[in-house]
Every structure is written in structure tokens, then in C-alpha cells.
């Protein structure tokens, strides 16, 4: 949208209609910024406006007055403005990021903060731009703020942003159904999202979806390659990287909808697989790469653990007595007990690849 001045004019009128006269400078500046971002990132088109609409609907449920709603709407429109500062190859990369890429991508709230800092007219919007990736439980970024310490406006934009991302198509995933997207938001209440914001959202979710998302659905099925929710995690072959890897995997595991206990057990199985690579494949040699490719499929979660070290014959690894009376051999036993399938990909000429599968509704017979 906004490919020519005529269209921009329409948008100016639309915005002015809502904010009244006398704020032209502010509105024009905002539009310039929104449009700059949309020119950069095609996927953002429409997204910012839907996030703004949804945020305002939630704010209204929470009893915001007109002035506060307007600030909320503007902040929501500009929440991703920092993505202007993200390199093309990252911005357009479908789905999977390496840890370094993820870290760079996660700088966009701070970059956005720096951008709007240049105009005092936009300072009210900073909380929504800087803090829309904070999580209610304190696990978000960039400030790791917790619960009420996260500005309420940012808590609202966070939910609206996430819901819209789930419910609409991305280069790397099909849209979730309304039910599944709503269910996900509810499952993250108190963790990622403020329970009160979730409550307000539930009151208006159906209406918002019907009016703003329903008609976006592509008429035809997307190609199957686009339906994959996949993330690649890469660590170096040192034990100290295992903990941070677990933290990153946790966000992925939460998306699978598997029970919390199963998520915890999968963490153990994946930890064992990576430990295996560190100890037996790389022989405790630091600085080598281990990649974990995680796929959230409709009926199962799949994890591929890939290293490039010495070939391991899993069958030759020590078999544990149970209960164990001496150390060793437990790792592979854990993988096999926790996961529904453990396969060794024999197709690689170098290194090892383990494929671990967990079915969401029990292993099919």
C-alpha cells in the first residue's frame, strides 16, 4: 500500500479524521516511518495496521480513554520500526535463524527506540516500540522486564503482534486457524502475556478475526514447503553452551503445544543428543558446530541433531544397567525412552545426524 501519493493522501485523511486537525506534522512523520518500513518489508504491509486495530480494541476493553487509545494506536503502528535497521538477508530469511542472526534480529526494538528518539513528538510511543518483546514472566527482551514493570501499552502490543503473526501467513508457515491461534495465546497467559490483557483480548478476538483476518486467507493451499514451522539452533561444542541452548529451545517447545512435562523431558533428550556430539563425536574439542533443527509439524515435533565430527556407532555405546550402578550409557537410553522415534541418519559422509521425533497425540501404531 502507499505506492503513490494518491494512496498516501488517503491514509493521511484517514489518520487526520481520527486525530483531528493540528497534528499534521506528527501524522505525516508517522506515515513516513510506517511507509518506510513497509517498503522495506513486504510482510509488514497490513500487519502494523492490524496490530494497531487489535491493540486499540484491547485497550478499549481495558477502559483506556480516547487520548490513551490514540497513543496506543500510534505506538502499535510503529512497533516494528526498528526493523528498518535489520539487514535484508536477515529480514527476508524464511524461518530459521542461527543464534547470531537471532541476536541481531532481536535488536530491532532498541533500534526502533533510537529512531523515534529523534522526534519528541514520538517519545510517548517508546514503551511500545522498545518493550513489545518483553514477556510477562520476565524472559523477554531487550530489558527482561517482568509483569507490571512492562508498560501496559507494550503488553497489549505484544499480544496483538503475536496473535496477528500466528493467524496470518508467513513465508515459512501457513496461518494458524483462529481456534489454534487463540488457544496458543491462552496457553501463554501469565508466561508470555499479561493474564488481564489475555482476558480483554478474548472478549474481542472473534470480532477482530472476522473483520480483519478471515478475508486475508489465501484462496488456495500454500505449497507444502511453506507450511513448516522450523527453527535452526546452532551451538559450539562446549558444555557451557548447553544451558543457553535449552533456553532458546524452550520458546520453540512452547509453540508445539506439547504438555509441560513432555517439554521438560524433550529438553533432556535433546541435551543428551548434544552432549553425545560434544563427548563422542568431537571428543571434547571446543569450537565445533552442532546444529539442532527443530520442526513443529501438525502431528509431531521433529528434532535433527547434526554434528561434523567422528562417526559414532550408537549400538556400540555402552548399554546401561537399570537402575544404573555406574556412570555412562544413560544418554542414549534417555533419548529412546523419552522420544517416540530415535533414528540415525546414515546418509551423511561426515559427522552424525540423530533424528528425534515426538508425536503430539501418541505414537501411531
Amino acid at each position, binding site marked *: 500500500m502507499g505506492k503513490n501519493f494518491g494512496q498516501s493522501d488517503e491514509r493521511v485523511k484517514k489518520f487526520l479524521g481520527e486525530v483531528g486537525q493540528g497534528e499534521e506534522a506528527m501524522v505525516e512523520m508517522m506515515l513516513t516511518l510506517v511507509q518506510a518500513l513497509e517498503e522495506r518489508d513486504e510482510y509488514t504491509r497490513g500487519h502494523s495496521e492490524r496490530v494497531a486495530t487489535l491493540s486499540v480494541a484491547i485497550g478499549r476493553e481495558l477502559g483506556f480513554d480516547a487520548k490513551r487509545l490514540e497513543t496506543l494506536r500510534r505506538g502499535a503502528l510503529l512497533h516494528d520500526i526498528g526493523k528498518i535497521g535489520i539487514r535484508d538477508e536477515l529480514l527476508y530469511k524464511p524461518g530459521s535463524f542461527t543464534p547470531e542472526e537471532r541476536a541481531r534480529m532481536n535488536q530491532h526494538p532498541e533500534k526502533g527506540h533510537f529512531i523515534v528518539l529523534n522526534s519528541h513528538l514520538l517519545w510517548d510511543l517508546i514503551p511500545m516500540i522498545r518493550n513489545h518483546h518483553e514477556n510477562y514472566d520476565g524472559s523477554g527482551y531487550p530489558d527482561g522486564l517482568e509483569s507490571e514493570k512492562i508498560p501496559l501499552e507494550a503488553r497489549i502490543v505484544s499480544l496483538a503482534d503475536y496473535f496477528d503473526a500466528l493467524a496470518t501467513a508467513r513465508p515459512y508457515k501457513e496461518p494458524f486457524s483462529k481456534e489454534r491461534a487463540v488457544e496458543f495465546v491462552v496457553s501463554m497467559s501469565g508466561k508470555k502475556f499479561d493474564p488481564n490483557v489475555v482476558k480483554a483480548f478474548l472478549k474481542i478476538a472473534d470480532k477482530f478475526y472476522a473483520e480483519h483476518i478471515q478475508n486475508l486467507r489465501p484462496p488456495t493451499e500454500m505449497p507444502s514447503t511453506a507450511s513448516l514451522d522450523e527453527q535452526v539452533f546452532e551451538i559450539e561444542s562446549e558444555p557451557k553452551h*548447553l*544451558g543457553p541452548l535449552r533456553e532458546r529451545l524452550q520458546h520453540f517447545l512452547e509453540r508445539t503445544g506439547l504438555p509441560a512435562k513432555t517439554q*521438560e523431558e524433550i529438553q533432556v533428550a535433546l541435551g543428551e543428543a548434544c552432549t553425545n556430539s560434544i*563427548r563422542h563425536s568431537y571428543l571434547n574439542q571446543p569450537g565445533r558446530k552442532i546444529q539442532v533443527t527443530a520442526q513443529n509439524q501438525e502431528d509431531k515435533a521433529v528434532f535433527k541433531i547434526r554434528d561434523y565430527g567422528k562417526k559414532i556407532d550408537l549400538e556400540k555405546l555402552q548399554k546401561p544397567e537399570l537402575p544404573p550402578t*555406574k*556412570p555412562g550409557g*544413560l*544418554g542414549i*537410553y534417555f533419548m529412546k525412552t523419552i522420544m517416540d522415534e530415535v533414528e540415525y541418519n546414515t546418509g551423511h559422509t561426515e559427522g552424525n545426524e540423530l533424528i528425534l521425533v515426538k508425536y503430539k497425540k501418541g505414537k501411531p501404531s
Partner: protein
Amino acid sequence: MKIELKRDEQGVHFIALQGDLDFHSSPELRTEFVKLVDGQASKILVDLKKVAYIDSSGLATFVELFQKMKRYSGKLILFNLSQGVRSVFEIAKLDSIFRLANNEKEALSLIS
């Protein structure tokens, strides 16, 4: 991993652990255990309240301590296990070997 050690007048060693117990942190814990075994510590209570994650190398560290203490008839009790940590003990069928107590009070009553 944070390891807090104390000893009461009855000679019971309390070890409170904080953090994940994995291939990274296990060697550090093992070092502490080796010292205790060298000193023939006869009663050891391990508080796992603040341990959210344990893997096979963490278990192996406890198995080793358990085996060594058995030689001099020492007693080892683990308590305050989170659900996730307990399920790892269960998968390895170690819940039947180790004395696992629900809380400190129960752990103390088991050891005296």
C-alpha cells in the same frame, strides 16, 4: 551452578544446589562430592529445590556418590525434587535406589 555447603552439630552435611545440573555443571558438583567422600561424610542431604533440570551426567554424579558412600555405610538423601527432575530419576529407575524425600523435615527424619 551454585553449591552451598553446611554442616550441623550432628555432623549432617547439607548441600543446597541452584541451577541446571548438566554436562557443564556436573564436574563442579562431582569435585565437591569427592571432597565429602574423602572426608568419609556419613550423612549427606541434598536440597534440589532450585534445580530445574538434570541430565544423565547429573544423575551419574549422584550414582557415583551413592556407590562410594555405600562402601562406608554412609547415608544419602535427596529432597525437594521438582516434577521434572523427579521424572528423570524415574525414567532411569533411580527413584527406587535413592532415598527421595519430599522436604527437609522428612529428609532429616530419614537420616537420623
